[in-house]
């Protein structure tokens, strides 16, 4: 192509680009469309009620107003074991400040889960998903999987696989600055 042709093409694309720029502008007063609950970023976290290991019940929507770190795990899962101390540290450090760390044990008996927690010296709340209904609701098909839910109950990040302290620090910023 000749010089003139290139410059004409550039001018043309720049003009169309200006139109795309104006079309793509996000006005400040935009109203957010309410998305249906789903285990995906930007959607409200699907609500559930499960028995806890401590003997009570936990309902996710009761934690509204708090950032929630929702972690699916099982005792047979090596990577889960690896990240448990990190989650405990998070609970120790920010539990008082209102960050709720909630473990969901996938499909194991209370005894198995309790023995595991005791062995590792873990004290953050753990719910029991013995029939794996909540795991299915959250489409958890590999462990560990973690959802970061903001104060309004909207999922802001998800993480598949074990998280190090550094990864937690980074991902937590999406729900707790």
């Amino acid at each position: 192509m000749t010089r003139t042709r290139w410059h004409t093409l550039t001018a043309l694309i720049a003009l169309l680009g200006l139109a795309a720029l104006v079309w793509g502008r996000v006005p400040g007063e935009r109203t957010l469309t309410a998305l249906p609950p789903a285990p995906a970023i930007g959607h409200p976290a699907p609500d559930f009620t499960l028995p806890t290991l401590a003997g009570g019940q936990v309902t996710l929507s009761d934690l509204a107003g708090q950032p929630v770190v929702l972690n699916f795990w099982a005792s047979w899962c090596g990577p889960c074991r690896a990240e448990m101390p990190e989650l405990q540290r998070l609970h120790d450090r920010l539990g008082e400040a209102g960050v709720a760390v909630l473990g969901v044990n996938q499909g194991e008996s209370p005894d198995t889960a309790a023995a595991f927690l005791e062995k590792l010296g873990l004290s953050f709340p753990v719910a029991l998903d013995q029939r794996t209904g909540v795991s299915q609701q959250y489409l958890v098909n590999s462990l560990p999987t973690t959802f970061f839910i903001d104060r309004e109950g909207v999922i802001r990040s998800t993480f598949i696989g074990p998280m190090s302290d550094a990864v937690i620090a980074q991902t937590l910023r999406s729900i707790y600055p």
Partner: protein
Amino acid sequence: MYPTLPIGPLRLQTYGLALLLAYLAGLALAARQARRHGLDGDHIYNLGFYALLAGIVAARLGHAVAYLEVYRTDPLQLLSLSPGALLLAPGLLGAVAMAALVIRRYRLPLATTLDALAPGLLLALAVASLGAFLAGRELGALSDAFWAVELFGVRRHPLALLQALALLALLALLLWTDRRSALRPGQVALMALFGYAALRLFLEPLRAESLLVGDGWRITQLAALAVVVLSGWLLGRNS
């Protein structure tokens, strides 16, 4: 949406797998193009390998600077194998710096080397975009267009898929032009840059969430517009 793929008894992360494929496919194409332009393909493989290493190191160091309080209490996390603890921007910077060093060290002709690398980069971006589409990353804005796909009860632009297709079309056009006419060194790389910037400029409004500046302007579009003008001007000057 397939964030993980079952391979035998394992579940592999789709996006990570796509990135690996993107790297290998992009590098192979770049090496092939290098040979077509009279360069040694091995130099391209070396360049790609060292750039990847430097990119990973820089991405981890960048992460450590950003989350210093964590790394200070536990410096061993610098060596952790966690692929989550990487930052993209410093990684890219490290990779580019290393590529520049390799080009100098082997005295590779800059323009021709960039001409060889450009199609490889476009292919890598296309494969990565396909992976992002499968894994449900890079979400598109809500839409009722005929091409919208349903995801979690809402219909969205298939942004990552459109991006992958646009990149592949651009790549085909680029390879065809390169084969058909004798171009000055640097033209292929400039055309790739020009085309990629134009593609980002027009696809960005379909993205669910963009970084904004000022009164709701999308930063990516502003940068892409500047790159279109600059690379278009250079293309004319160099032709």
